[in-house]
């Protein structure tokens, strides 16, 4: 990579060094979780996980595995810092968010450790931009304790089938009610808005559904305002896995294929709203 980087010291001085030929492979995935200003980054030798939370009820994680990067070195067992995600995304798209076809922006990202800024070197067509973003004290993130052994119902769906549903959600409804059941209606999304109620039913043998593993009927409600941001991940993804556990917690896993055909995952966890009153379901 033709990066002129006189500022870079010996690589051993950095606790994290990562290089990428196409910065969009990182920025796209980060956009999928960009619904709050700040994010917490965890880096291990396996890759980077970026976490965004809201209202102590919803958490989004983007996983960028080490293999996505051309170079990925973590000196310590894990490196954690908090960063302004808006600023990070602005820097990553400093050469424009939709570049000319054929031109790629390369990225080298370095972090010296606790208290240091995150250094970004972005290069496009021989022009290098250096960004330093101050990092912040990492905050403790929520542990949703979502364990696959407690999963009651799981549906894997082509994202195409949910995209329209999510973009047209009746936002006058406070909640999105998700019904998953081994019997009719199998998989149903419901809203209860000013204009009346709407139900969207997917038969389990639909071509949109890749896998249908529902063991018992669950009807849970989730704050629509908390779930709506996941639309960002949905539009980028090709498949989505919808799971609920025995407490009604929801996990939405989005499979996102980047421009080089590699797979990244974005995951949303959301806790359910109050109990469903019998009469309204």
């Amino acid at each position, binding site marked *: 990579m033709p990066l002129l980087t006189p500022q870079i010291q010996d690589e051993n001085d950095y606790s994290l060094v990562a290089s990428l030929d196409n910065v969009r492979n990182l920025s796209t995935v980060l956009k999928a979780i960009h619904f709050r200003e700040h994010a917490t980054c965890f880096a291990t030798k396996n890759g980077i996980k970026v976490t965004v939370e809201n209202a102590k009820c919803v958490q989004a994680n983007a996983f960028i595995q080490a293999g996505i990067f051309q170079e990925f070195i973590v000196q310590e067992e894990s490196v954690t810092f908090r960063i302004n995600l808006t600023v990070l995304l602005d820097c990553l798209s400093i050469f424009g968010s939709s570049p000319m076809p054929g031109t790629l922006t390369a990225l080298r990202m370095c972090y010296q450790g606790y208290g240091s800024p995150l250094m970004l070197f972005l290069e496009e067509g021989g022009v290098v931009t250096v960004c330093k973003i101050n990092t912040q004290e990492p905050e403790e993130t929520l542990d949703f304790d979502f364990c696959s052994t407690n999963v009651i119902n799981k549906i894997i769906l082509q994202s195409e089938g949910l995209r329209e549903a999510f973009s047209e959600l009746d936002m006058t409804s406070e909640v999105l009610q998700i019904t998953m059941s081994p019997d009719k209606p199998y998989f149903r999304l419901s809203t209860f808005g000013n*204009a*009346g109620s709407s139900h*969207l039913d997917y*038969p389990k043998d639909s071509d949109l559904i890749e896998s249908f593993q529902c063991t018992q009927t669950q009807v849970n409600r989730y704050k629509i305002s908390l779930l709506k941001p996941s639309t960002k991940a949905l539009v980028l993804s090709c498949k989505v896995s919808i799971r609920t556990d025995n407490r009604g917690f929801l996990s939405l896993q989005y499979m996102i294929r980047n421009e080089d055909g590699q797979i990244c995952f974005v995951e949303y966890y959301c806790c359910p709203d109050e109990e469903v009153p019998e009469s309204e379901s």
Partner: protein
Amino acid sequence: MKCLVTGGNVKVLGKAVHSLSRIGDELYLEPLEEGLSLRTVNSSRSAYACFLFAPLFFQQYQAAAPGQEGLRCKMLMKSFLSVFRSLAMVEKTVEKCCISLSGRSSRLVVQLHCKYGVRKTHNLSFQDCESLQAVFDPALCSHVLRAPARVFGEAVQPFSPALAEVTLGIGSGRRVILRSYLEEEADSTVKAMTTEMSIGEEDFQQLQAQEGVAITFCLKEFRGLLSFAESANLSLSIHFDVPGRPAIFAVQDSLLDGHFVLATMSESDLHSSELHRLVPPLQAPSTPHLDDFASDDIDSYMIAMETTGDSEGSRAVVPSMSLSPGCRPPSSPGPYSEDNETEPGTEPGTPPPKKFRSLFFGSILAPAHSPPGPSPVLAEDSEGEG
């Protein structure tokens, strides 16, 4: 009521709802024997639109369950529109659409059967309502223009989306002229740009109007009907009369018809220069007395009948606030009002917008139940007004 729409007709229905949504905030849906009627009126009551989809438009059409009285309902335009919000998506994914209305559930159920077996069910809340019916007759208008909607569509294209009104008239050489209408500014030295389009007579299927006639009406509503007519590849006819009389815009084919009735600016509001710039000034305008109303204003011409369904006593009877019998010419029922008992009511507190007069959709009581003497007038709740 139950009806089933399939294939491309779902989009036609959706498109009709989109064009109605340019006019009013409320949608009146009434299943009739002759088809499903969708109607709306704008808040200042200067524009009214209706579509009637014939039973053949549907795969299946049942106006009322056997032995049951037909229902009609009124709902927020927004909520019905949300069902068809993305027409591209409707076209791509929806295979059939089932609309049903039953008195028991008090919900209008719209079910969309989409690709991959996905089924969307909208349970829309509605209000029971009177029938909304404007009285108009294209046959009474002395002037008629008819052309493929595309001709009009291309003609209004250059007008700025912000332009409120447009003047349509016949210029010299029988060319049809559409000109942006600009309100007279207080400071007339600042003249904004005027856009004028002229269409040759040969583009029209029918052109029955002499040189010099012109009317001015709202462009937004017209565009709404145009976009429907263009997508359905229909001809649009415009029936109009002297300025101030409502103009009727109509589309029709064997499965549906649509009528938009729009107020036009009355002559006194128009600057004569504005009007006559189209052609050399006319001779003394002949006043064709088509009916008793020629001397009266538009209010008497356009009467909306909010006919009571039947003897249901629950209807709110609001005495007319501003009905002054003196204003009304004696015994001049509209040509289509049912008898002499019908009396126009007024919508209190609704000033007509700009220089347009309200089309005056007053209410009348069903003749059979009219008490003698000054009739109480059924008026729609005006809580939303103002």
